[in-house]
Each structure stands twice: as structure tokens, then as C-alpha cells.
């Protein structure tokens, strides 16, 4: 069943006739429980797409439905935002309270939820991102990856059906990136939360069920990670990249090494090459 439905959407930031069209008549659907990655160069329109999902932006043409609710209907904005949470790039801009657990409680408090239920939700959310032991700390004492997981917990405490993450790992160190990504995977696989993730890291995008590539406000290609990342030349043409594992095998193939497919992950690549080389 589709959870988000985007129908013939066009969007521009300024109202003037000649201002640049950011999205050009795009349509697609995201199913409940799916993990979707959105890829595209800077300025391609991918962040604009993400902001359509929780009614931060409403398209001039076309419709966006979240769980059947029209995002253009202002009386539904509150309900839509409690279903779709947004996590942004810089964790420092997203934390408001001076103690971790108070920060996570901020969302549910604003939803007017009774105190004992807030307690329950906050504990559950912090456990889900593996930050429960840090609940009484000050956010500024945490590492980037930990802060970003607290920001995600703040969203989970509102019990959304879907979390949209706009480059959640761009400012993190390698360990922080792994922590955040495995948290996202866990929320998707174990809690059934629909995930839409925008990223410039191809190693992260290969973990998604479905990958969309955006350029100049339209989709260039989409499909499973395997289908999308096998099109190495197309991705490069749109200023994107493929994981080094994929690129290595793509180049070896061009040199005449016979490989029947391209791997997406390091483990897969090593296994394939062992067979060919040994």
C-alpha cells in the first residue's frame, strides 16, 4: 500500500513567471515500510522533494498525499507532521534542550500528550537509537553521531510512520556515520518505519530498497540499488558516483576481466574477486 503519493508535482520557489522550475511534473509513490534513497547533485531538487512530504512546502501544481491526506489542506498539516518527521544535516541546529531526555520530550510535549506517556515514549525512543544510557547528559557533550541519534529519537518519540532524513551523516566522522546508518536500518527493519534518506554517500544508498536519482527536477532513473548502481556511466553523467567496490569491478570489466555483475558492497566485491583471482 502506498504511504506517500506524489502526483504530477511541479514546484518553484518564487511566484514570478520566469523563475526557475525546481521540480518538473514528477510522480512517484512510496510504500509503507519501504527504505528509499534519493540521490542527486547539489541543486537537483532532492531537498525540495523531501520538504513536500511533511507539508513544509506545498506544490503549485499537482498533489502530494500522505497516508491519504492532501498536504495542501492546511487543517491536516498537524496530522501530517505527526506522521512524517524530518531530520536535517546539522545536529547542532536541531537540539533545543539542555538535557538529552528533555530534548526528546519536546515533540510529544507539544503534541499535548499526558506526562506519564511522554516518559514512556522518551525512554522507548532513546532505547531505539541506543542512547538511553546518555539520557541525563547535556547534548553539547555528545559526539556528532550521538547528537544526530538524539535528533532522530526526538522524531521517534512522536511515533511517526515515516522519517525523512536530509543528508543526516554529512557532518559526521566515519564511526558516527555507521552509528546513524545502522540506527536508520534498525528503525526500518525492526520497527517498520518508512524511511526516505537523501545522501551523497553511495555506500549508504546501496542499503536502500529503492533508489531514485533526481536531476534538474526530474527523475533520471530509479529502481533497486543493483539496477541503479549498475549504470555507472549514467550516474557519473549526473555528477554522482558509485561505491568504490562497484567502480573497481566496473573498471576491471572494461580491462577485459570477466565479471557477470557488479557488486554493491565491500563483502560482495571481495567474494567475487576471490573467485576470479584465486
Amino acid at each position, binding site marked *: 500500500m502506498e504511504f506517500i503519493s506524489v502526483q504530477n508535482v511541479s514546484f518553484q520557489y518564487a511566484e514570478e513567471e520566469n523563475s526557475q522550475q525546481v521540480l518538473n511534473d514528477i510522480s512517484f509513490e512510496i510504500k509503507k515500510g519501504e527504505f528509499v534513497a534519493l540521490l*542527486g*547533485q*547539489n*541543486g537537483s531538487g532532492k531537498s525540495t522533494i523531501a520538504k513536500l512530504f511533511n507539508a513544509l512546502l506545498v506544490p503549485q501544481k499537482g498533489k502530494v498525499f500522505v497516508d491519504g491526506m492532501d498536504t495542501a489542506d492546511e487543517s491536516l498539516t498537524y496530522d501530517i507532521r505527526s506522521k512524517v518527521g524530518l531530520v536535517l*544535516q546539522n545536529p547542532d541546529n536541531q537540539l533545543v534542550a539542555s538535557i538529552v531526555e528533555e530534548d526528546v520530550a519536546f515533540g510529544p510535549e507539544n503534541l499535548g500528550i499526558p506526562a506519564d506517556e511522554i516518559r514512556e515514549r522518551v525512554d522507548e525512543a532513546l532505547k531505539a537509537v541506543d542512547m538511553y544510557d546518555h539520557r541525563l547528559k547535556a547534548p553539547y557533550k555528545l*559526539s*556528532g*553521531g550521538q547528537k544526530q541519534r538524539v535528533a532522530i529519537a526526538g522524531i521517534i518519540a512522536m511515533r511517526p510512520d515515516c522519517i525523512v532524513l536530509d*543528508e543526516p551523516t*554529512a*557532518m*559526521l*566522522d*566515519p*564511526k*558516527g*556515520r555507521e552509528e546513524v546508518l545502522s540506527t536508520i536500518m534498525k528503525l526500518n527493519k525492526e520497527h517498520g518505519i518508512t524511511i526516505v534518506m537523501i545522501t*551523497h554517500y*553511495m*555506500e549508504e544508498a546501496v542499503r536502500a530498497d529503492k533508489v531514485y536519482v533526481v536531476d534538474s527536477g526530474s527523475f533520471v532513473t530509479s529502481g533497486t540499488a543493483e539496477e541503479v548502481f549498475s549504470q555507472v556511466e549514467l550516474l*557519473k553523467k549526473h*555528477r*554522482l*558516483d558509485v*561505491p*568504490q*567496490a562497484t*567502480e*573497481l569491478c566496473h*573498471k*576491471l570489466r572494461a*580491462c*577485459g*576481466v570477466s565479471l557477470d555483475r557488479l557488486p554493491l558492497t*565491500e563483502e560482495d*566485491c*571481495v567474494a567475487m*574477486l*576471490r573467485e576470479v*583471482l*584465486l
Partner: protein
Amino acid sequence: MSLLQVQDLSYVYSQGTPFENTAVDHVSFSLEKGDFVGIIGHTGSGKSTLVQMLNGLIRPTSGTVLLDGVNIWDKPKEIRKIRFKVGLVFQYPEYQLFEETVEKDIAFGPTNMGLSPDEIKQRVIDASNFVGLKPELLEKSPFDLSGGEKRRAAIAGVIAMDPDILILDEPCAGLDPLGRDVLLTQIYRYHEQRGNTVLLVSHSMEDVATVCDKALVMNHAHLEMFDTTQKVFSQGEKLRAMGLRVPQITSIIDSLSVAGVPLEKGTLTVERAVEEITEYLKREGRL
């Protein structure tokens, strides 16, 4: 004599208060002219504090920084001169643009150095060439540029001072993959042509592996390693324990080597890996 000598350098934030925190702990190393060094380390490892001491933006709690053999804090009133010699580009420098036009913004540094108008003009042109800013953009307001262009303009502003040492803190954060490649190539070309020393702070092991000759590893305020990139990235286990990684390609070749394929550990780029594998197959008569 080394261009820059860092001797027993420490920095303690909020010393003497309950919030006391040692960000850099007795660090020593030297940089030669023409070095291209990647600085890596987990968040909070002390990278940014360290580079801020190198251009005198903050004064070390103890230890010294010698530039051309002279302690940069010998004459505190002249510390500004040090900042012309050691140029620092902060993270997200595009937020620091402030002038009416891109040209004026890039000219801000050279103007403060007291250069002649002709010299300033030339430096603005050279610096924008290095970062690939089109000449027609110079007349525009910095706020009309795209994110990537703004970042280039900000970097050009530091390059225009022609520093002996250029330090860039995460210059590629948030750029798309091609944007990263292009900017890194431009920085590399700047380094090659000017022969200047460049320090690149980065969370991307791939970027450091591709362009840097040496890597300096910070871990919990300590200097853990300072060696050639190849030697640093051939110690995958040690890096992992510090919350760092090796580039995916290095890890792939290492695993194959452990499995018994005679390939070189610490391979840093996909191009090199392709060469090694095809050479091996040719030696074996299988290609």
C-alpha cells in the same frame, strides 16, 4: 630547517574551572615546504583546535609553534602577519562572505595586507582561476551564487593572500560527488603549481587517500600517527579502534591480500587497484 615546527603543543579549554577540557595534549610534529597533509580524527579529537593554533587564532596553553624558526607569539601585536602566512579556511566558509561583490570579498585579505591595487587585482584573478570561478561571477553579489560557487569564492579569498601554508577544514562537506572531485583536484593543482604546503582536515578517508602525501591522525587530543598516507592506511585495525576507517578500496585489497592474492596492502585509489589486479592477471597469463 622545517617550515613549521610544532613543539609540545597543548590547549586546555576553561582552565581552572569544573569544565576544564584538554583539547590538544602535548603534540609535536614538523611540516616541510610542499607537504600535502591530511588531518583525520574522530569528532572532538582536537583537529580544529590544533589548526587554529597554527595560525595564531588561539594561543596555546603551553608549547610553541615555530614558523620559519620563529615563535609565532614572539610579538603578539604582529600576530596578524602570521595569519597572512598561514591561511585558514573554516568549515562551511560560505557563511562568512559579506562584501557587496565577489571581487571585493576575495580582495578583502590582500587589501588588508596593504598591497597595491594592481597587485590586488591580479591576485583576485589568479585565486578565482585556481578555484574555477568564472570571471563574470566576480561582479555579482556573493549571495546570488550557488552553494558550491560561494564555497569556491570563500576559498579564493584565502588563496588570494598567497599563504605559505593553506589549511582547509572540511572543504568538501555537503558537496555532491563530482563537486568534491573537482574541488579536490583544484586544491591539488594549486599545491602542485605553487609548491605550497596544504593541510586538509577531513572525515573522508577516500579524499585524504586520493590527494594527500601524508596523514596526521588525532585521537582524544593526542597525535597518534604522522606518516605517509600509505603507511597510515595500511593500519586498518588501529584506525578502526580510533573510530576511523580506511577507504573502501584499501579494505577490499587488504582482504584479497589476506586471502592469498599477492596484492599490495595499503592501496589507496581505485585506479591503482585496477593496475595491480590486471598486472597480476597478466603475470599469471590469465588476461
